[in-house]
């Protein structure tokens, strides 16, 4: 991944958050507080705005900047979580353009940081439930010798599946957990936006 690709990724995320804003809001309305769509939209709009005049030296720097921008523009649970994910991933990257394996390791660092911050385990009905299977799929493809486009495409599908698989779960973290068993039967908004993040990576990598 080079800086141009990283930029395309971020732009594709912003486009996806714009297109899916209402859907994320409605998902969050069912088991949360109806702000996830606006949160993601605001956050990635802010990211786009900073990118205009920003000339990073590396993908690493760029992702750190994305994370910092998310933290200072989103708020809510998703702001610090996504922000930390991008920051940790960026920091874990080398100063050079990462290969797929290096990117994977960085994304793992991002996931670890999310889990450390939010204390969510797989199955708690959070963004982790899309993030983790996405990375597992990415890893399998990389191990099998696939390139970034292939790995990203598989990760995106796995994230989608992971998001859908949150439907029958009972939430144990975040505000959906307040609903207890009534959180069952609804797809987690954060897992859904995570699937959009990986979908955007696949889109960018396929260009």
């Amino acid at each position, binding site marked *: 991944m080079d800086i141009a690709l990283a930029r395309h990724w971020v732009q594709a995320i912003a486009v996806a958050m714009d297109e899916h804003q209402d859907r994320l809001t*409605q998902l969050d309305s069912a088991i*949360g507080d109806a*702000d996830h769509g*606006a949160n993601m939209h605001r956050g990635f709009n802010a990211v786009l705005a900073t990118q205009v005049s920003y000339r990073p030296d590396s993908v690493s720097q760029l992702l750190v900047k994305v994370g910092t921008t998310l933290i200072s523009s989103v708020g809510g649970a*998703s*702001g610090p979580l996504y922000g930390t994910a991008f920051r940790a991933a960026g920091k874990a990257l080398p100063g050079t353009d990462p290969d797929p394996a290096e990117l994977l390791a960085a994304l793992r660092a991002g996931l670890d940081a999310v889990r450390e911050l939010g204390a969510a385990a797989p199955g708690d009905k959070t963004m982790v439930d899309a993030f983790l299977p996405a990375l597992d799929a990415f890893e399998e493809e990389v191990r099998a010798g696939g390139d970034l486009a292939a790995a990203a495409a598989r990760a995106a599908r796995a994230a989608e599946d992971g998001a859908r698989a949150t439907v029958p779960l009972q939430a144990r*973290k975040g505000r959906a*957990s*307040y609903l207890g068993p*009534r959180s069952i039967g609804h797809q987690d908004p954060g897992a859904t936006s995570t699937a959009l993040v990986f979908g955007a990576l696949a889109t960018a990598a396929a260009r």
Partner: protein
Amino acid sequence: MKKFLNTPESVLADALAGLAAAHPRLDVDVEARVVRRAGAGRAGKVALVSGGGSGHEPLHGGFVGTGMLDAACPGEIFTSPVPDQVLAAATAVDQGAGVVLIVKNYTGDVLNFRMAAELAADEGIEVRTVLVDDDVAVTDSTWTAGRRGTGATVFVEKIAGALAERGAGLDEVAAVGRRVNELSRSFAVALTACTTPAAGKPGFDLPEDEMEVGVGIHGEPGRRREKLGTAREIVAEALAAVLAEPVLTGTDQALVMVNGLGGTPLIELYVLFNEVSTQLAAQGVTIARSLVGNYVTSLDMAGASITVCRADEQLLALWDAPVDTPALRWGG
């Protein structure tokens, strides 16, 4: 969506501008989203900062003023503020004696305020955090995000604010805030869902004869749905939940709030308060002080919460201390 607004996106900025226009004794930075007392602070006074998502007015901006908060940082509707914003507020009001952050226990609030606290510490500001988690509808277990912070926030802000005004030190102010939280419990029911400007429609549908029991203040459904009961029955259920908390066992005098969630008129809150007063008296609890009104709301939700704080003479004296804010004002 039936709301007085210009665009869903501009609600917060417009409301903050309105807050500024209505209250000359507040210094409102609409851009930075910081509401603070106008004028210079008192050197050496411990500063109190609170904040959280908007949509709960008068919380928190309406509680900025002498005897209560030094600053508030309102986030977007139902979205906790970002760390920079909290940091800006803390920096603006720190008088060298440190800052107490009063945080309602929600994942977003906890994370953003924690990050802000780290940034503030980096800048040499001494920070203590008081976490408010009074809502008994949510059990505090490792399988949830813990109890939510709701009505007790007003008690914490008022009482810690009074102690800070008296010149107490940082740890002392934080300690009294934590003690108030520990001694307070809340329970809420809703008769309708609320509508966020972003969603444009109510968060859930509720049949004409049903209520949501154990709701929070973010428009989410409650723990369960029940047939709408009488005021007497609803209060009995709420008080049973609240008084079952071990920390309230043996309460003889209490600070009580009957709080409207935004769409419930005052006359109904007085009907509820009458039940609370009668039923607490029957259980040997004297209401030493009380609030009846809209203090911690959930946009236009029709509903009410009941908060009981087991109070002693120290807490009551701090409660009675002068306060001068848009939403609470007495003494002086």
